[in-house]
């Protein structure tokens, strides 16, 4: 089965003056539909670079990043926007400009090309409600708590119904209850909607609901060795019908 997202021997390094820092070294990783993969690493281990490369927002120096079997480098965003729309990126920093009056407008933004403003706003409020942050719809981003920021950022990424979701440190600065809510949502999105989810986490307990767990250090990814999700470890949440 072709993985939804595939990194093949990806390498990436940064230069500081004459010093080269290798951030990713021959990193290979597959994420299948319905699978939730979490990668942990210490600060500076290269988690953000891994997430950016996996989401197609940065190009690797060597190796390939494929979405549904198609090499993202051969289909850049400008030439094939539809392909890239299938990858949801959780932008935890929120709006990059101050043009948005409300959270609802911000979440509706990715839909404006395809839907009327009214439809886009309606869909945005539906996803905010689904993620339990309907109360934030009329607020401004700056007035939200850290937990709300994360959930709104998730709504912004999910509103376009991507097939892959990539999030860099979505659990950063959250308390245990908020973290449980966020990772529980991601796990449900993988289980119930078949979304392929890749997140990086600052703390290993944040990875507890993932199908596979990886550790990033010295540019190398060490990943748990079992095969992709066989359904054996699907968590059935309260109120969810067992298969």
């Amino acid at each position, binding site marked *: 089965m072709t993985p939804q997202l595939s990194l093949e021997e990806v390498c990436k390094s940064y230069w500081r003056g004459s010093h080269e820092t290798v951030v990713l070294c021959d990193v290979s990783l597959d994420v299948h539909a319905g699978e939730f993969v979490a990668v942990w690493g210490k600060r500076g281990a290269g988690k953000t670079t891994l997430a950016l490369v996996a989401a197609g927002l940065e190009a690797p120096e060597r190796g390939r990043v494929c979405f549904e079997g198609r090499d993202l480098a051969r289909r850049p965003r400008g030439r094939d926007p539809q392909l890239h729309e299938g990858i949801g990126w959780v932008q935890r920093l929120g709006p990059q400009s101050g043009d948005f009056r409300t959270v609802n407008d911000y979440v509706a933004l990715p839909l404006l090309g395809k839907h009327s403003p009214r439809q886009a706003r309606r869909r945005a409020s539906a996803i905010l409600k689904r993620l339990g942050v309907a109360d934030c719809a009329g607020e401004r981003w700056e007035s939200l708590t850290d937990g709300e920021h994360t959930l709104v950022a998730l709504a912004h990424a999910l509103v376009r119904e991507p097939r892959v979701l990539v999030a860099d440190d979505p659990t950063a600065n959250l308390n245990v209850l908020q973290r449980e809510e966020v990772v529980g949502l991601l796990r449900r999105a993988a289980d119930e909607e078949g979304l392929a989810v890749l997140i990086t986490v600052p703390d*290993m307990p944040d990875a507890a609901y993932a199908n596979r767990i990886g550790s990033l250090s010295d540019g190398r990814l060490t990943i748990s060795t079992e095969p992709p999700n066989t359904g054996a470890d699907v968590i059935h949440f309260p109120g969810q019908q067992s298969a």
Partner: protein
Amino acid sequence: MSAKHAILGLMIERPGYGYELAQRLQERCGAWGWEKSGVYSALDQLERDGHVRSLREKRLGATARGAPRVIYEATPEGRNFFRDWLLSPTAPSPVRQELDLKILLSGSEDLPRLIDLTWAQEQQCIDDLRELTRAIQSRPLVATSTWHEARAVLQRDAEIKLLQVRIEWLQDTRKVMKQMLERSRERWPK
């Protein structure tokens, strides 16, 4: 640490017979790695100390051979003993790893192999972590979760954190080893 406090605590929640207590111990405290056989010796000791008593109860079922099952329940002394243990201060347990001893007794010529061993142990930790999260299938906490649900999540987090600390140490150790190896190669180029 013996399993007796855990078994006594489970018995205070609900009396039970040996096999059933062993199953509950595995479900609740599987991460401690106690053998099921240890349950019976712990029950014997608890009974000798007067913390539990056994009852032969025919109505609650019988073994395959028709003998009455032995049901164990905590005595009032056992309940007090358990409460005293539960509420007393606890010293952290030191962790001794074989790899640490190898590093302590190694020479600089062993560094390349030791670096490989840190990678191997990191892979093992990641696999253990995955097994742990698979074994302890707690549900995500929500505001309405009970303390029973919350304590399972907190226990899982404690186990994961131990592995995280180990992995962080392995990564730091590997970094130092690599630096030392590079320095020795600069000093003694081939």
